[in-house]
């Protein structure tokens, strides 16, 4: 049951017309952020859903070679993305490889999120020497040649899924730790923390039950953007041959396999790359939109915390 109130007929007391309101920056920002969230979510899901359901789709096995059907162009019978140099179905390879890529990405972000949240919150809340140690660690990592170190670790310890996940997590935890730390610094001065102290709560309880729930929303926005970054990092590693080989070749590896044929079979490089780009653009747009939407409440901190893409 809704009541419609008609706008009064007399001329408006102000020169601002509804048209002006619709075109104003603030209105537009709100509208744009909704558009970004929808388009971003759509793009990301357009990749994530087929990847997640790869086993249910009627696809040939990603490892079934068929030398008679080598390098078929896309849209040929039964091969939507065409086939690669060994006659394997490219779509199946991309989707099954994507399962590995996405698993690594999600796991890495979860691990780095846990490390970053814990260390950042403790450093921000306790201050003192804990803060000094954590801040030093953050600075030290910034001055390291990052990709080189990642490659080194993977080359030395073998390109297994746990090693790669761990390596990406180590590369990403400073982002979250820094944000959590600065948010906690603000949060711990608020009256409710003092009140909790007076009520006799222990520091751990205050941190876990009061401070963390208050900052988790903002941290989670960044986690989304880190997921995009993790996918890119994993694809770069596997492009350089430092990606997981089993059970399926991941996206970067598929592209590096296909690059020798780039002159004759464009789809071997173009299509897997487009899939990565679609996913990452989607996740980034989605995160950007969410950030714009929530930006009003605590704009300074989040705006300043833009996603630094790791040096690749």
């Amino acid at each position, binding site marked *: 049951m809704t009541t419609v109130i008609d706008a009064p007929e007399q001329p408006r007391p102000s020169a601002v017309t509804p048209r002006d309101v619709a075109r104003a920056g603030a209105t537009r920002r709100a509208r744009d952020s909704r558009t970004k969230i929808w388009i971003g979510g759509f793009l990301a899901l357009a990749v994530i859903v087929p990847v997640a359901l790869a086993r249910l789709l009627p696809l040939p096995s990603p490892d079934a070679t068929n030398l008679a059907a080598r390098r078929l162009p896309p849209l040929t019978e039964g091969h939507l993305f065409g086939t690669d140099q060994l006659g394997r179905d490219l779509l199946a390879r991309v989707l099954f490889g994507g399962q590995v890529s996405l698993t690594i990405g999600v796991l890495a972000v979860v691990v780095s999120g846990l490390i970053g949240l814990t260390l950042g919150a403790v450093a921000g809340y306790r201050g003192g020497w804990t803060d000094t140690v954590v801040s030093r660690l953050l600075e030290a990592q910034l001055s390291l040649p990052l990709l*080189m170190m990642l490659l080194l670790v993977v*080359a030395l310890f073998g390109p297994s899924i746990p090693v790669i996940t761990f390596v990406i997590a180590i590369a990403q935890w400073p982002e979250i730790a820094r944000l959590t730390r600065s948010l906690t610094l603000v949060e711990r001065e608020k009256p409710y923390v003092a009140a909790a102290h007076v009520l006799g709560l222990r520091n751990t309880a205050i941190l876990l039950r009061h401070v963390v729930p208050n900052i988790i929303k903002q941290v989670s926005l960044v986690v989304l953007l880190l997921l995009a970054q993790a996918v890119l990092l994993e694809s770069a590693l596997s492009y350089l041959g430092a990606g997981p080989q089993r059970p399926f070749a991941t996206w*970067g590896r598929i592209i590096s396999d296909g690059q020798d044929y780039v002159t004759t079979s464009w789809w071997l490089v173009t299509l897997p790359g487009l899939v990565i780009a679609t996913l990452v653009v989607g996740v980034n747009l989605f995160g950007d939109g969410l950030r714009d939407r929530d930006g009003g409440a605590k704009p300074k901190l989040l705006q300043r915390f833009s996603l630094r893409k790791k040096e690749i």
Partner: protein
Amino acid sequence: MPRYIAKRLGQSLLTVFLTLTTVFMLIRLAPGDPAYAMAGPLASTEDLARIRSDMGLDQSVFIQYLRYVQGLLHLDLGTSYSFQAPAFDVVLSRLPYTLTLSVAAILLTTVVSVPLGVWMARRADTRRELGANVVTIAGQSMPDFWTGLMLITLFAVLIPVFPPAGFTTWPSLVLPTVTIAILQIALISRMVRREMVGAFTSPYITVGRSRGVSERELIWRYSLRNSAIPVLTALGTRFASMLNGVVVVEVVFAWPGVGSLVVRALETRDYPLIQATVLVTSVLAILVQLLVDLCYPILDPRVRLGKGRAK
């Protein structure tokens, strides 16, 4: 000022030393035998033992480390296994290529991203700005090796304007530079926009406008100058990371720089070469950071180095 520089250099020295120690330890912790990698699968046990003692690998890790530090003090980083030449010299011979590429990329980035960022900031929250915004998001979302391969396909294979790979003539610099710059432009222009939007709301802009300062001067002389420090810091960080981090793009374009050297050194487990690369690139990165910090007082006279951090 000299005291500040000395202090910074001292801190940096410690960082470099710790990095090198970490790399040293990581290498020794890992499974795999460089003697085996060098001699091949057909080598006899005696051959392997001889190679090991030649390379000093039969000593305990601690002794190896002491020797390594001793060599470090003389800038002697050992002999590269695969090049059979002093590792330090091998890295130095590759360095000019990486430097050229990084300088070209950072110049292109600056020239494009600052005007783009200012343009976006002036039209903040309009339809056209949304378009630019989406384009920059796309720019930072494409994997750079893929962008590189696409550029090769387009501009070296389909329309052969530029050489596809290697470094033969100056035009071969174009494609790798553009590949690196696409990502950096996306990141830096967003940052310029953010800083400029912040600067536009500051009181001194209102005062300037009320006094009739032209819009152009307000933007380019006042706002930009006040946004310069964070932007310059970001550019410096990017440049420093390029010096040791254009690995992927160098591999795509078969660019004979440090990045492709690292990949090769890792594949062959060339320990001295890995260590020399890490040393050279981290020292360079730290020097760039220091230079950027020294520029702060020029841009903003309020900054006094060494007396609290300028933020």
